[in-house]
């Protein structure tokens, strides 16, 4: 038998080569996919770790309340715990220490509130702040020497400090207070954004005039006094916070080490507690590193599921191609089989021979596929998107790859064995009926499985963490196979219709081609392969386009605008102009924060979001897909105020003055707060000192450092400046703005909540004078009640907007069961603001999937101002249509905060290392499908023409020209190919619409927001179909031409 197999292999080597090629293609595809989901995926985790922002991998030990004597040892032990947890990665550590508050007797006493301050020590201070004046503090030279300190700019300004000044800090405000100490200011510093100042007790602001630390009453807090860390430890001060942050160097991370470190970090809390004992009151270790790696692993799992689904599809295609090749082989060996059967060879021997042949093929294919898949994988990693994701790698062999290749090769070879063993067939009519029944049953079963798979895909949890199961992995292949099988059922009736039509023709070529196409029993495997390959190819392109579109949609909605600059510190006048100059786009201040809606604060970690921008320019600013034909300009127009705020133009450097009078015996003072607006809509408050209303004119601080500002509101808290008089006082205040004239819009005056009744008859009017514009504000204040009771006169250059019109997200509407026109109330800070729902949107920009509110920032600010709150609710700058390609870098250079761009986010989503495997696998699937389709067509046509050689020769004998024979053969094959290709494309299109959206997940594994929109890229699909048709027809044409040329007497001789 072995000798027979060897001789047959020599005689039929082209056939065996074709079989080997098909098995090798399938095994190579599997091997490459195995490498994508193992080697590349593993490398992706390492790249994610290596590329992670330092803050995403840091590990911080937080220690609260440490005795001064223990502080240094606690810091050292904390460092040891962290560095050992991060081993074997090298790590750098940074320590930040803040003492508990001390009194600050030298601070000016305002409003009768005490002043407090604190010491801080940072061992990497120059990396976190820039020097505005002086130098950085150095360690004290002797015990008696005063500590050297640097202060932040606002602290220096408010306390009147400059380098060289000596300040006495009072005793600690603790149970066992450390004594007062002296510090010498040697430098004034400016905090750098994103440098961890959010961990400072005053968040790096330098002061808080209503600090509510641990005291029941607010105090004026200033600080920190930044001293050398060793000095702080040596000062004996009780440490309120001691933080040690370790940042590992993960540039050479390996998966195993990352797993080790992740485990260590989870146990670091316990180890820190054990190491520190009772030297600290509270200790804790926190790190985003496990989450960072966990997110990457989640993305990897999501990608692996999709890649496996594509691998299954590729495997199915290969099996179909092999089934075709197997059937053709069986057909070719029919005579040999009959002869051997007649000679007494039994079914078992045939099976054994087929197994040996299949096994040899599988071995050879596996031997070829292992290096081929390694090379293909290496090539893929050097192409986008894998190369862009830093995943380029050289050829390598992995255990999973070898297993996949071997399993694939032997599994596919088993198809050949089964086909060879199934050769013994009952009589034709019985076989036909039985096959028909079996096919119908198989089709129905396939459709049922496909429906179940689709349902499983559709029923995936919407949240993250959905694990891929086997059904979901095979579902796309099942749907495509079922579609192709059904499409195969549609092709014969179409061909029969063409046959009926062709019979009316007078000539022979068309009717003969149509008849052959319609009536010849075509190999089902060939038809299935053509349909399935076409469906897989078109589906692959559709899925790729759908996935890419979804990533861009997600990026659009997640950033919400083209460029977002999230502020690290409070905005300053003039920042808007700087952002505009750096980006060249449409600039708007933006609020983007969590809020409380009435009593509702949302679910844990997912509060309702407020997004507010200048909606009058929403068309240029907002991004994210809207439903229907709505546009952001239309949505924004419904939210924007009818007219812009007028106000008084304030020239740069103008000296504003204020004077006022108050009736009654008790002296009355006001603390003016002016709201200035720049050209971008940014509103900043300019605070004055408390001023007595004694008829004298007072100069206000410099409120207009830059040009283009307008005064849009003034708040005047009215306070008794002496003993409280229970009566009332008629107050009149005049604010003079030099060098300007009042606009036509009237000013509005109101008494701000929460006790508006304490101020009656508020009025405001702007008039022009030779000196400039005068804003006169009057009211009658009721002076009884607590000293700091609210009596705030607010004058605005706009009317009270009433309920602020807002657009809410669909989730917001569902969760609160509110609709268009519904009233809402939200708290901005502590100020309640009334809202009215004007629109319901699928999602709000920058808040994808969240319960969120979109409002006009100007209108929102007006409502706040009308309520006496002049704080501008701003968290970021949003820029639409930036003019410069390097706008992001230029905006980052402003050092105002963190810059995020829509384009970068899209690139991150589409090209992040754990996700880049999917597009890479798609780039593998489409050519593989095309290759297998062409191979199948060539095999089928070649065998078909060979089988019909005699028939073709007889047609020559009947007098057909060679060109007519070519036309008949071409027409026949084109007539079969074309409907199959069209049907396959239709199945691909249906799958793109029904399955592709279900295969796309977000980077967290959740259902993407906005919902995935299926994309059918007509141009790319048309090119693929044209290439497939052209390639197939070219192969057919070559075979037909060769066959027509050989159709001569020799074949007739054979036949006779």
């Amino acid at each position, binding site marked *: 038998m072995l000798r027979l197999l060897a001789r047959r292999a020599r005689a039929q080597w082209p056939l065996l080569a074709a079989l080997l090629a098909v098995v090798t293609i399938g095994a190579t595809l599997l091997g490459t996919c195995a490498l994508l989901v193992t080697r590349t995926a593993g490398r992706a985790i390492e790249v994610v770790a290596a590329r992670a922002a330092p803050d995403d991998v840091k590990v911080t030990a937080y220690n609260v309340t440490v005795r001064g004597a223990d502080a240094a040892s606690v810091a050292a032990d904390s460092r040891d715990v962290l560095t050992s947890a991060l081993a074997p990665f090298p790590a750098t550590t940074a320590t930040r220490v803040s003492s508990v508050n001390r009194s600050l007797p030298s601070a000016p006493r305002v409003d009768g509130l005490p002043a407090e301050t604190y010491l801080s020590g940072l061992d990497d201070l120059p990396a976190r702040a820039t020097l505005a004046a002086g130098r950085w503090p150095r360690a004290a030279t002797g015990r008696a020497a005063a500590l050297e300190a640097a202060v932040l700019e606002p602290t220096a300004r408010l306390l009147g400090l400059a380098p060289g000044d000596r300040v006495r800090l009072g005793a600690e405000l603790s149970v066992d207070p450390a004594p007062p100490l002296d510090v010498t200011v040697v430098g004034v510093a400016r905090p750098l954004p994103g440098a961890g100042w959010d961990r400072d007790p005053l968040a790096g602001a330098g002061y808080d005039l209503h600090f509510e630390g641990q005291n029941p009453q607010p105090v004026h807090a200033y600080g920190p006094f930044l001293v050398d860390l060793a000095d702080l430890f040596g000062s004996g001060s009780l440490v309120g916070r001691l933080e040690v942050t370790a940042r590992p160097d993960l540039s050479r991370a390996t998966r195993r080490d990352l797993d080790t470190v992740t485990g260590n970090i989870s146990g670091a809390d316990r180890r820190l507690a054990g190491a520190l004992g009772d030297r600290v009151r509270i200790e804790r270790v926190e790190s985003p590193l496990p989450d960072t790696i966990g997110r990457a692993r989640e993305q990897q799992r999501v990608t692996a599921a999709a890649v496996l689904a594509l691998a299954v599809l590729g495997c199915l295609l290969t099996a179909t191609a092999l089934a075709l090749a197997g059937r053709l082989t069986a057909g070719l060996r029919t005579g040999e089989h009959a002869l051997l059967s007649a000679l007494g060879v039994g079914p078992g021997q045939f099976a054994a021979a087929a197994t040996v042949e299949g096994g040899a093929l599988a071995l050879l294919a596996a031997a070829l596929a292992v290096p081929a898949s390694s090379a293909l994988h290496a090539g893929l990693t050097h192409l986008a998107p894998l190369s862009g994701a830093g995943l380029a790698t050289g050829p390598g062999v992995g255990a999973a790859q070898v297993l996949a290749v071997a399993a694939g090769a032997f599994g596919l070879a088993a198809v050949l064995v089964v086909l060879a063993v199934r050769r013994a067939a009952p009589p034709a009519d019985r076989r036909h009926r039985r096959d028909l029944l079996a096919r119908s049953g198989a089709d129905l079963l396939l459709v049922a499985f496909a429906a179940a798979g689709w349902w499983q895909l559709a029923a995936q949890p919407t949240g993250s963490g959905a694990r891929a199961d086997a059904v979901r992995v095979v579902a796309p292949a099942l749907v495509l196979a079922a579609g192709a099988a059904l499409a195969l059922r549609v092709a014969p009736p179409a061909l029969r219709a063409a046959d009926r039509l062709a019979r009316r023709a007078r000539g022979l070529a068309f*009717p003969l081609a149509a008849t052959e196409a319609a009536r010849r029993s075509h190999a089902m495997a060939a038809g299935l392969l053509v349909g399935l390959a076409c469906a897989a190819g078109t589906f692959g392109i559709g899925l790729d386009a759908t996935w890419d579109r979804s990533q861009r949609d997600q990026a659009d909605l997640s950033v919400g605008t083209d460029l977002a600059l999230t502020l690290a510190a409070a905005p300053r006048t003039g920042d808007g102009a700087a952002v505009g100059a750096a980006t060249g786009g449409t600039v708007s201040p933006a609020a983007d924060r969590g809020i409380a809606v009435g009593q509702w604060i949302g679910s844990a970690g997912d509060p309702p979001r407020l997004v507010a921008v200048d909606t009058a320019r929403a068309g240029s600013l907002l991004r994210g897909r809207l439903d229907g034909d709505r546009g952001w300009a239309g949505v924004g127009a419904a939210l924007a105020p009818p007219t812009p705020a007028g106000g008084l133009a304030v020239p740069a450097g103008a000296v504003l003055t204020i004077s006022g009078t108050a009736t009654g015996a008790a002296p009355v003072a006001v603390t003016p707060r002016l709201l200035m607006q720049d050209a971008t809509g940014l509103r900043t408050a300019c605070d004055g000192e408390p001023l007595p209303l004694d008829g004298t004119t007072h100069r206000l601080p410099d409120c207009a450092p830059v040009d283009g500002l307008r005064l849009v509101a003034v708040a005047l808290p009215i306070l008794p400046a002496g003993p409280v008089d229970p009566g009332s006082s008629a107050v009149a205040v005049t604010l003079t703005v030099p060098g300007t004239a009042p606009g036509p819009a009237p000013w509005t005056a109101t008494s701000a909540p929460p006790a508006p009744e304490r101020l009656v008859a508020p009025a405001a009017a702007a008039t022009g004078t030779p000196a400039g514009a005068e804003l006169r504000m009057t009211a009658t204040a009721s002076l009884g009640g607590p000293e700091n009771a609210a009596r705030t006169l607010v004058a605005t250059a706009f009317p009270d907007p009433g309920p602020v019109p807002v657009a809410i997200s669909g989730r917001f509407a569902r969760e609160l069961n509110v609709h268009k026109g519904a009233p809402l109330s939200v708290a901005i800070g502590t100020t309640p603001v009334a809202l009215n729902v004007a629109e319901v949107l699928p999602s709000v920009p920058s808040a994808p999937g969240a319960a969120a509110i979109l409002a006009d920032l100007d209108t929102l600010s007006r409502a706040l101002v009308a309520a006496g709150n002049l704080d501008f609710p701003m968290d970021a700058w949003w820029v639409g249509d930036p003019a410069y390609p390097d706008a992001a870098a230029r905006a980052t250079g402003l050092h105002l905060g963190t810059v995020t761009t829509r384009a970068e986010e899209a690139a991150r989503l589409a090209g992040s290392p754990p996700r880049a495997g999917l597009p890479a696998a798609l780039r593998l699937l489409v050519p593989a499908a095309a290759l297998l389709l062409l191979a199948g067509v060539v095999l089928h046509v070649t065998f078909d023409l060979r089988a019909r050689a005699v028939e073709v020769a007889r047609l020559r004998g009947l007098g057909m020209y060679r060109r007519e024979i070519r036309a008949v053969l071409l027409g026949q094959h084109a007539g079969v190919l074309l409907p199959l290709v069209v049907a396959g494309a239709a199945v691909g299109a249906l799958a793109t619409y029904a399955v592709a959206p279900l295969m796309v997940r977000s980077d967290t594994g959740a259902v993407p927001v906005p919902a995935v929109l299926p994309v059918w890229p007509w141009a790319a699909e048309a090119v693929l179909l044209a290439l497939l048709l052209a390639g197939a027809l070219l192969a057919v044409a070559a075979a037909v031409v060769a066959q027509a040329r050989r159709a001569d007497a020799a074949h007739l001789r054979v036949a006779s």
Partner: protein
Amino acid sequence: MTADLVSVRGVHRRFGSGPASVHALRDVSFDVAAGTMVALVGRSGSGKTTLLNVVGGLDRPDEGTVVVDGTEVTALDDDGLSDLRRSRVAYVFQTFGLIPVMTAAENVGVPLRLARVPTVERERRVELLLDLVGLADHAAQRPDELSGGQQQRVAVARALAASPRLLIADEPTGQLDAETGLSVMALLRGVVESEGVTVLVSTHDPVMMELADRVLRMHDGQVSC
């Protein structure tokens, strides 16, 4: 005397080259009168099929000339040979040579379609020919639904469809039993009588030889009367 429809002069045909070459026809010369039935007999490998293929223009001789109905076949190009087979020469093959996916009527209509005969006329002629061969009731059946004799009758009807001058039949009864073969022979004889068609038929069948007007014997590539 009846004019010759076929004239073969000095035809040689070799297959292969060198010492392994086969000399299938050696200086073959003969004539066939129009309206006669000539039987070509000889053992297998004697060159009968090669000679028929050369006469019908399916093969080209290495030397010599063949004239059919006044046309020198050996001078025609590929299209000319096809034209000849369409209009003046028809074949009946041993294995019938029907197109399996077509019905009997459609198979008979193939030469008429090649000649672009109008549909109505084609259908009338097909009906006539099927009636002639006794298969009017089997017009809609495909070859695999017909017996061997019926298939060969369809092949004869197809051969006659374009009213050829010469009908070449290569062992038309080779795959038929004696009774069926006889009926096919009778049919061919009838065709000669009724249609005036010249028939050149290769056969081993002694009955066929009896029905023939003339018998040409082939031996080792040579013809003797």
